C-alpha cells in the first residue's frame, strides 16, 4: 500500500449497526472517490444531485418499484435447492433466482434504475460497457423500453466469446462497438465508454454496470441492486423465520454480490463470502482476483484493489467467464475486505465448470459461468457445514449465453 490514509478500514464509531458509507465525497475508507478527467466532474455532480433528489421522491420510487414488478418480474423466488443440499449432505442451499429476471440476470435492476434517472435528467442517449454481455443486454432492453438511443462498448475478445448476447443487443436496437484497444476485454470497454461519455456528456448518460467507477456510481448501483438482498432478507424471515447464516456471490466488479450483501451488512452474524475468478489458479497469475492478490490503486474513477505490475500498469486478466474478467473491483468490496466484514476467495475456471454441470444436472438450472464460481464455493464448503446451516447464493444469471463457450472447451461442436 502506497498511500495509507487515516485509520485502517473500520465501520466507524457506531460499529456495523451504524454503517453508513460512502461519505460525502464517495469514500469507503481509503477506497472509492472520484478520479476522472475534469470534463466529467460536472456530470457526476449532476448525477449525484438528481439521484439524491429522486431517492427521496415517492413518485420515482413507486415508478421504479412498479417497473421492477411488472417489467422485470420481481420479486424473484428464493428457491430451496433440496436435491443439491441432500446430495452434498451439509448446509441447506437456497438460491436467489436473479436468473429469472427479464433479460436473465441481475444487471437489469440497476440498468432500469439508471435509465429512469437518465430520463429524469433529460438525457436521450445511454451508453454502457459490457463483458459477458448481460449488462449490455439489460441496457439495450431498458433503452428500448424507454425510447432511448443505446450504444454498448464491448471488448473484441468478448464480442467473439459472447456472440448470442451481441446479437440480442442488436435485435434490441443497440449499437455494439467492438473495442480493439489494450486487452480487448471489459476494462478496455470501460475506458472506451468513458471516452464516449467525455465527448457526449451533454446528452448522454453512462450506465455503469457494476458497483465501481467514480462516485456516485458505486453507491447508485449498490442501492438499485439492493433489492436482491432486501427481498432475500424478507423471504428468509418469512419462510425460515430467521436470517441466513451465509451469503455467497461471485465478484467481478461486484454488483450482484453487493446487492445481496448490503442489506445484511448490519447483521454481523451473517457471513458474507465473495468469490472471485481464480482463472488457471492464483499461483499462475492468470486470473481475475484483485481482492485475493491485488494492491490498492486508481483505475476507472475510483481507488480500489487492482491487478497491476510494479510500475502500476494494469495487467491482463484471465477468466473463463467474460463477466468476471476485470482487473479491479467495486471500492465497497475493497473496504469490506479490509474491515473484515466480508471474506473473498477465488475459484478456478475448472472448478467453476464442474459446478456449472453439477447444478445444471442436479437442479435443472443452467447457471451463468460467473454464477458458477459462487456455486463452486458451495460444492466445496456446504458438505462441511451442519444441516441447519442456511446458505443463500445469488443465482445471478442464467447460463444460456455460455453454452457455446462451454461446448467449445469440451470439444463439442454445436
Amino acid at each position: 500500500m502506497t498511500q495509507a490514509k487515516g485509520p485502517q478500514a473500520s465501520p466507524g464509531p457506531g460499529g456495523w449497526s451504524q454503517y453508513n458509507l460512502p461519505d460525502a465525497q464517495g469514500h469507503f475508507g481509503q477506497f472509492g472517490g472520484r478520479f476522472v478527467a475534469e470534463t466529467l466532474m460536472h456530470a457526476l455532480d449532476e448525477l449525484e444531485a438528481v439521484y439524491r433528489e429522486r431517492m427521496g421522491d415517492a413518485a420515482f420510487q413507486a415508478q421504479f418499484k412498479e417497473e421492477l414488478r411488472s417489467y422485470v418480474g420481481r420479486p424473484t423466488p428464493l428457491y430451496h435447492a433440496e436435491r443439491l443440499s441432500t446430495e452434498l449432505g451439509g448446509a441447506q442451499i437456497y438460491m436467489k433466482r436473479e436468473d429469472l429476471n427479464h433479460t436473465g440476470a441481475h444487471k437489469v435492476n440497476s440498468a432500469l434504475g439508471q435509465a429512469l434517472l437518465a430520463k429524469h435528467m433529460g438525457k436521450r442517449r445511454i451508453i454502457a460497457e459490457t463483458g459477458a454481455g448481460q449488462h449490455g443486454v439489460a441496457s439495450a432492453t431498458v433503452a428500448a423500453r424507454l425510447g432511448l438511443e443505446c450504444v454498448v462498448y464491448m471488448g473484441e475478445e468478448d464480442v467473439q466469446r459472447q456472440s448470442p448476447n451481441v446479437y440480442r443487443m442488436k435485435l434490441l436496437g443497440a449499437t455494439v462497438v467492438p473495442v480493439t484497444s489494450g486487452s480487448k476485454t471489459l476494462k478496455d470497454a470501460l475506458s472506451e465508454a468513458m471516452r464516449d461519455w467525455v465527448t457526449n456528456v451533454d446528452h448522454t448518460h453512462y450506465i455503469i454496470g457494476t458497483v465501481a467507477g467514480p462516485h456516485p456510481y458505486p453507491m447508485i448501483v449498490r442501492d438499485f441492486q439492493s433489492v436482491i438482498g432486501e427481498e432475500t432478507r424478507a423471504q428468509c424471515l418469512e419462510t425460515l423465520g430467521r436470517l441466513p447464516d451465509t451469503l455467497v456471490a461471485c465478484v467481478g466488479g461486484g454488483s450482484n454480490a453487493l446487492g445481496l450483501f448490503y442489506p445484511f451488512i448490519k447483521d454481523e452474524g451473517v457471513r458474507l463470502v465473495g468469490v472471485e475468478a481464480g482463472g488457471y489458479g492464483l499461483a499462475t497469475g492468470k486470473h481475475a482476483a484483485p481482492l485475493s492478490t491485488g494492491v490498492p490503486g486508481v483505475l476507472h474513477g475510483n481507488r480500489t484493489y487492482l491487478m497491476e505490475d510494479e510500475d502500476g500498469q494494469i495487467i491482463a486478466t484471465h477468466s473463463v467467464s467474460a463477466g468476471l474478467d476485470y482487473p479491479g473491483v467495486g471500492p465497497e468490496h475493497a473496504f469490506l475486505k479490509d474491515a473484515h466484514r466480508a471474506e473473498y476467495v477465488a475459484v478456478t475456471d475448472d472448478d467453476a465448470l464442474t459446478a456449472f454441470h453439477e447444478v445444471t444436472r442436479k437442479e435443472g438450472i443452467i447457471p451463468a459461468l460467473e454464477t458458477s464460481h459462487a456455486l463452486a464455493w458451495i460444492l466445496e464448503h456446504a458438505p462441511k457445514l451442519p444441516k441447519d446451516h442456511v446458505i443463500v447464493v445469488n443465482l445471478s444469471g442464467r447460463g444460456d449465453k455460455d453454452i457455446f463457450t462451454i461446448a467449445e472447451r469440451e470439444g463439442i461442436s454445436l
Partner: protein
Amino acid sequence: MSRLATRFAARKASGQKALVTYLVAGDPEPQATLPALRALAAGGADVIELGVPFSDPEAEGPDIQGGCERALRHGVKLRDVLAMAKAFRQEDNETALVLMGYLNSVERMGYEVFAEAAQDAGIDGLIMVNLPPEEAEALQGYLAPRAIDLIFLLAPTTTEDRARAILQRASGFVYYVSLKGTTGAGHIDAEDVAARLAPLRAMTELPIAIGFGIRDAVTARAMAPLGDGIVVGSAVVRQMGALPLAEQPAALEGMARSLREALDSSC
C-alpha cells in the same frame, strides 16, 4: 521563479504566446525521446509535457493511446521517464518540463518517492489527468515544498463556482481543455473557447494554456489570441509514430518552428 512561470512571463513580456508540446516518453522507442525533447526545444517549445505511458489512458484519443502502447511494448516505466527527463535537464536548464499521466503510476511509486525523484530530475510540473483537486491534497503536499507545480485542468463543463475553487489551488499554469472529448479530437470551436475563457481570465493571474484539438498552424493561430499559450500533443505523437527514428528530430523541430511562427503571426 519556476521555469514555468519564467517561460510564460518571458513570452508575455515580449507580446508572444507560449508553445507547449507533448510527447509520450519512450514512444515509439526509448531512444527516440531525448532527441525529440531537444528538437522540440530547438524549434521553440517553452514547455514540454512528457507523457508517462499508462496501460489504460481513459482520457486519450487514438494517437496518444497508440503512443502509450508503443512505449509500453518497450517496457518503459515511470522511473525510466524520470531518467529521460533528468538527461534532458542536464543539457537544457531553460525549457520547462511537465510530467503528464495517470495517478496510478504515481500512486504505485509512492507520492513521496515520486516527488523526490521528480525534483531530482528537474521536473517543473505535474498534470494528473484523473486527479481532480478534491483528491489532490495529499499529493500536492509532497509536490509544493519541492517547487513542483500541480497543474489542474479546466473544461468546458466546469462551472464558474468550481473553476474558482480549482483556481485557488492551481499553480504553474492553468490547462484549459478546449473541447468536450479526448485528446486529439477534431471539433475545436474558437468562439466557444473565447466565451468560456473570459470569466476564467477574471479569476486568475496564472497563465492559461489551451489544449485538446490544436493540431497545426491554422488551429494554433485561431486559439493563440485567446490564451497565454497553446498545447499541441496528439499531432506530435502521430509524427513520432509515423516516422523512422532518424527522421523524427528534424520533423519535430520543423513542426515546433511552424507552430512558433503561427503563434507569433497571430498576435
